[in-house]
């Protein structure tokens, strides 16, 4: 009795009916070649498991968990109130469009318009949400600059991406873009360096920029740390 490869493999994979499985088992006893082919396929399964299973046993990288959590923040429905469009934000959006061009309306782009203001989204949002200035992943397209407390008490962070730079402040429903400038690969940015960004940050800032420990603590508090009286 001969069995084709598909049948032998299905036997090894437990994908065969009971009657055929019994016939193969009986045939194996007198057919060393069949037995060897089955052993070879069992060995292959074992080799692949030994090789790949350790990957599933490794600790999951932070950044992958952060990607799920951060995206969930953007996807959560915005509050129903406060949707009226402020004239200022439309003007800002227009000015912004000059810099950012078509990047603004691409799905997954860095900016979304929500509750009357420009909000960070996509990779920009996840960088603002998770990235520490003290430990920036090399492959991240967003660089975080300063993290500081603004005059209104919000935590704000300066950032740079290829298409845009600016200052975003953490509001209840995400990161509001308070200041926007051209990105680091645009000519106007290269001429001016990032001095406009720094000037804007220093005008908004109360006290000194956060150090690494403070930055980390604020992140744990979802960037909305309690304000303490007298500070």
């Amino acid at each position, binding site marked *: 009795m001969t069995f084709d490869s598909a049948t032998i*493999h299905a036997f090894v*994979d437990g*994908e065969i009916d009971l009657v055929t499985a019994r016939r193969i088992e009986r045939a194996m006893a007198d057919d060393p070649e069949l037995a060897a082919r089955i052993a070879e396929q069992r060995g292959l399964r074992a080799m692949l498991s030994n090789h*790949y299973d350790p990957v*599933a046993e490794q600790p999951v990288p932070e950044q992958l968990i952060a990607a*799920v959590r951060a995206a969930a923040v953007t996807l959560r429905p915005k509050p129903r109130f406060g949707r009226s469009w402020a004239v200022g934000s439309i003007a800002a959006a227009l000015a912004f469009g000059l810099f950012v061009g078509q990047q603004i309306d691409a799905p997954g782009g860095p900016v979304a318009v929500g509750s009357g203001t420009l909000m960070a989204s996509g990779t920009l949002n996840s960088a603002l949400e998770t990235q520490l200035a003290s430990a920036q992943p090399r492959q991240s397209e967003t660089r975080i600059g300063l993290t500081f407390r603004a005059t209104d008490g919000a935590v704000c962070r300066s950032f740079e991406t290829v298409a845009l730079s600016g200052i975003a402040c953490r509001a209840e429903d995400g990161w509001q873009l308070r200041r926007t400038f051209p990105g680091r690969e645009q000519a106007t940015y290269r001429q001016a360096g990032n001095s406009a960004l720094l000037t804007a940050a220093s005008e908004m800032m109360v006290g000194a920029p956060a150090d690494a420990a403070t930055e980390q603590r604020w992140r744990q508090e979802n960037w909305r740390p309690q304000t303490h009286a007298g500070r």
Partner: protein
Amino acid sequence: MAFEGRAFEDDLIGLIPRLRRFARSLSGSESDADDLCQAALERALKARDQWQAGTRLDSWMMKITRNIWIDSVRSSARRRTTALDDAGEIAGDGEQQVESRALRVDIDAAMDRLVDDQREAVALVLVEGFAYKEAAEILDIPMGTLTSRLVRGREALARDLGATA
């Protein structure tokens, strides 16, 4: 609604170890695998409305991961790389360390030599342990097509690896 949303995220996070393993077997490199996982998770969150509650989330995620990988291969934006460094990065317990580094690289190289169709069939059935029927559904192909890809893929692997097991 908020509760369901949270549960969905938690389920996704729970699947990450298997997604990483699958992505690793498709892409052959640790860093490509994590980029691939991240892209798949982001796409899944955007498309969460398309997932039907009560169906298997793992199959759905594997399908997304596989589609992103195929897109990136076809756009030839990247090629599978079998980097020695990556192979060396797999941390193992005592038993794993017995396996020589050379052999590990051999498996990556042998997987690399398979055509894409065969590699994904092997990855789903032999690495991820999906039943034929589920694997065929993930790949959107008839069962007969899946089994013939599996036969060719595993015979090539067995030849290549010389059944050294």
